[in-house]
């Protein structure tokens, strides 16, 4: 295994573990779902690195296409429970980027 291959693997694995922790620790429902969708996409890359393209294909289709849609639908169904959606301009979050411009 080459050095740059290792760099890629370590970056990937570290990101995966970090995403898993963040997705599960996050209180905001929608945010943790987005983190999980990102996790699913990266898992697919991990299968590639484990020379399992068969699994990578299935994971790509299911992780990106179906699980994500199911979870987002569920989040829409239960919205407001964990994160209020900004609906009007006076919602503090809606202004967007007041802090990180």
């Amino acid at each position, binding site marked *: 295994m080459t050095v740059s291959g290792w760099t890629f693997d370590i970056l990937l694995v570290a990101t995966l573990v970090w995403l898993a922790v963040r997705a599960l620790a996050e209180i905001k429902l929608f945010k943790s779902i987005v983190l999980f969708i990102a996790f699913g996409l990266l898992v697919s890359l991990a299968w590639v690195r484990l020379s399992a393209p068969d699994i990578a294909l299935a994971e790509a289709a299911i992780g990106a296409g179906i699980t994500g849609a199911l979870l987002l639908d569920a989040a829409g169904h239960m919205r407001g429970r964990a994160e209020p*959606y900004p*609906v*009007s*301009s006076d919602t503090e979050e*809606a*202004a*967007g*980027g007041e802090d990180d411009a």
Partner: protein
Amino acid sequence: MIDAISIALIIVGALFFLAGSAGVLRFPDVYTRLHALTKADNLGLGFVVLGLSLRADSWVVVLKMLIIWALVIVAGATAGHLVAEAARTSHVVPWRRRS
């Protein structure tokens, strides 16, 4: 020689991806970030595809990568439009330089 050009093109592509991510991080609101995402990343992927095409074994592989690129462009443009529309109809206020 061809290898060098191909690597150079891929590096340019990677730079566009980095610039796109920089935009997504630095730009002030969701609309401007969508600009960075749709334009810079699609161009970055274009350069990566171009660079890899120079190394490809056959024309069919080049065409296949171009199809993949076209699909990503369509997806990116549509997703940008939809997310921007959702944000606008939900009254997410755009950032303004003045006022």
